[in-house]
C-alpha cells in the first residue's frame, strides 16, 4: 500500500463524504446551514419497501461475499498443498463445505424475509406505523444476518487454509483445527437466529 493519503480506500470514501456533505448543506431552506428538520422529513418519507428490499439484498449479497472469500482463501492453499500430498484433498473439502453453508444461511434468511413483502393499501398516501416498522425490521434482520455471515465466511476460510497446510505436514492436526472451524461457523448461525427473531413477528400487513 502506498502512503497514507493515497490509500485506495480514500478514493471511495473521500468523494462519498464530500458528496454527502454537499447534499446536506445544499438541500432545504437557506435559513440554516444544514436544514435538519427537512433532512428528517426526507428520511422518514423513504418508503419502507426500500428498506425491506435493501435488507434482503444485503442479506444474500454479503453472505455470499463472505462465503466466496472463504472459499478462495482455503481453495488456493488447498490446491497448492495437494500437489505434494494428494491425500489431503478429500478431507479438506469439509472446510469448503463450511464456507458454502454460510452462503446457504444467507439465501435461506433472504427467502424468509422476502415472503414478508406484501402489498398494502395506503390511506391518503401514508404508510402506517406497522408498515414502517416492518420495513425497518426486515432491513435490520437482513443486515444482521448478512454481516455476521460475511465475517464468518472470512474466518472459516482463513482457518481452513491453515488447516490444509498443517494437514499436509502432519495428518493428526486436521481434526483439531476442524474444531476451531466449527466454532467459527457458529458465528454465522448466531446471525441467522437473531435475524429470524427480529423479522419473525413483523409483516407489512399486520396491524401495529
Amino acid at each position, binding site marked *: 500500500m502506498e502512503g497514507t493519503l493515497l490509500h485506495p480506500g480514500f478514493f471511495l470514501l473521500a468523494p462519498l463524504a464530500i458528496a454527502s456533505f454537499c447534499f446536506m448543506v445544499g438541500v432545504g431552506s437557506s435559513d440554516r446551514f444544514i436544514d435538519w428538520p427537512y433532512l428528517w422529513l426526507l428520511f422518514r418519507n423513504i418508503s419502507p419497501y426500500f428498506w425491506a428490499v435493501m435488507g434482503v439484498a444485503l442479506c444474500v449479497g454479503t453472505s455470499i461475499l463472505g462465503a466466496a472469500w472463504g472459499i478462495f*482463501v482455503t481453495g488456493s492453499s488447498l490446491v497448492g498443498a495437494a500437489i505434494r500430498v494428494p491425500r489431503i484433498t478429500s478431507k479438506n473439502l469439509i472446510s469448503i463445505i463450511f464456507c458454502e453453508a454460510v452462503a446457504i444461511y444467507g439465501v435461506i434468511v433472504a427467502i424468509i424475509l422476502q415472503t414478508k413483502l406484501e402489498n398494502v393499501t395506503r390511506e391518503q398516501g401514508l404508510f402506517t406505523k406497522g408498515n414502517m416498522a416492518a420495513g425497518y425490521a426486515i432491513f435490520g434482520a437482513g443486515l444482521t444476518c448478512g454481516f455476521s455471515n460475511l465475517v464468518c465466511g472470512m474466518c472459516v476460510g482463513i482457518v481452513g487454509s491453515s488447516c490444509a497446510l498443517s494437514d499436509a505436514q502432519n495428518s493428526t492436526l486436521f481434526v483439531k483445527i476442524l474444531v476451531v472451524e466449527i466454532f467459527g461457523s457458529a458465528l454465522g448461525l448466531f446471525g441467522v437466529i437473531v435475524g429470524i427473531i427480529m423479522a419473525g413477528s413483523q409483516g407489512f400487513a399486520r396491524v401495529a
Partner: protein
Amino acid sequence: MWGWEQLYFNIKDGFLEAIVRGHRGGLLTVPDYNNLTQCEALDDIKLNLTATDYGAYLANEASPLYTSTIVDKCTQKLVDDWNNMRCQADETLAKFLDFCTYGHMIDNVVLIVTGTLHERDVQELLDKCHPLGMFDSIATLAVAANMRELYRLVLVDTPLAPYFSENLTHEDLDEMNIEIMRNTLYKAYLDDFAAFCGKLGGTTAEVMSDLLAFEADRRALNITLNSIGTELTRDDRKKLYSNFGLLYPHGHNELSIAEDFDQIRAAMEKVPAYANVFNKLGYGEAQMLDKLLYEEEVKRCCACFEQQFHYGVFYAYMKLREQEIRNIMWVSECVAQDQKARINDGIVFLF
C-alpha cells in the same frame, strides 16, 4: 492495514506459498541424516538420497560418482523448484524472489572477475557459477579490464547496476579491491532488500527484517574477522557494514575498532541475541563460530514457517535448502575421504 494479510494474501500468492511449504516438508530430517552418516561409499549415499526428494535427480547418475556431481544435482533441484515458483509468481512476489537471488549474482560476478584475473578459462568459471545467480551477459565479464569497463559493458544492464556507486568504478581490479567490491555490492544489496521488504509492510516486513538483520550482522562479523591484520582502514571497514540490523549503529562503531577476536566478542556479546551464540564458544575458539552462525540462521529460518501469509517463507526455504546441500556435501566428502570420525561435527540439523 497492518496484519490483515490473511484476507488478501491468498488472492495472488496462496498457491505458491502452499507449494513452498510442501517443499519444506521434503527437507531431510534427523533419521535421513543418520542413514547418510552410516554410508560407506558414495553409491550408498546416492541410494539413500533416492528415497528422498532428490530421487529423480540422482537416479540416473552412473558410477563412479563424485562429490561434486551429487552436489550439482542437488543444487539443480533447488534451481528447478525456484524457477517453477518464479515463473508462476505474481509481480510483487516475483520481485521478491529476484531479490533473494541477487546475492548469488554478486558472488558469480566476483568469481568470474577473480578467475579472469588469475587467467582461468571462462567456460570453467561459468560452470562454477551458482545457477540461481546467472544472467545473460555474464560471460562478457571476462573481457573487462578494469572496473569502469566492467560496469559500462556488462553490469549496467543487470539488476546490480544501482549498487555500483561512483567511487567504486574508479578503482582497478586487484585482489583487495575485488573483496571490497564484493562487500560494498552486498551492503548496497542488503540495504535495498531491507527497504523493499519494509515497503511491503505487514508480516513480510516484520519477518524479513529479522532474517535480514541477522544476515547483515553476520556479514559485519565476518568482514571484521577477515580484515584483522590487513591494510583495510577502520573507516573503510565501517563503510562495508550495512545500515540496519541489531548492531547498527553502536555495535558497528565498536566492531570497526576491534583488532582481535576477544574485542570482537566483547562487541557482539552486548547484543543479547548474539550473546547466546558466543556463550557456546569456548575461549579462543574461532573455528566453531561458522557452524554456530549457521545453526542460528537455520533456527530463525525454521521459525519463520510458523507464520502464514508472508513472503519470508520463500527466502527461508532457499536458505534451508542451501544448508541441506552444504550438509550433503560435508557428508559426501567425509565418506569419500574415509574420515567419518568428524562427520557429525559438520552437519547442521535443520529440525
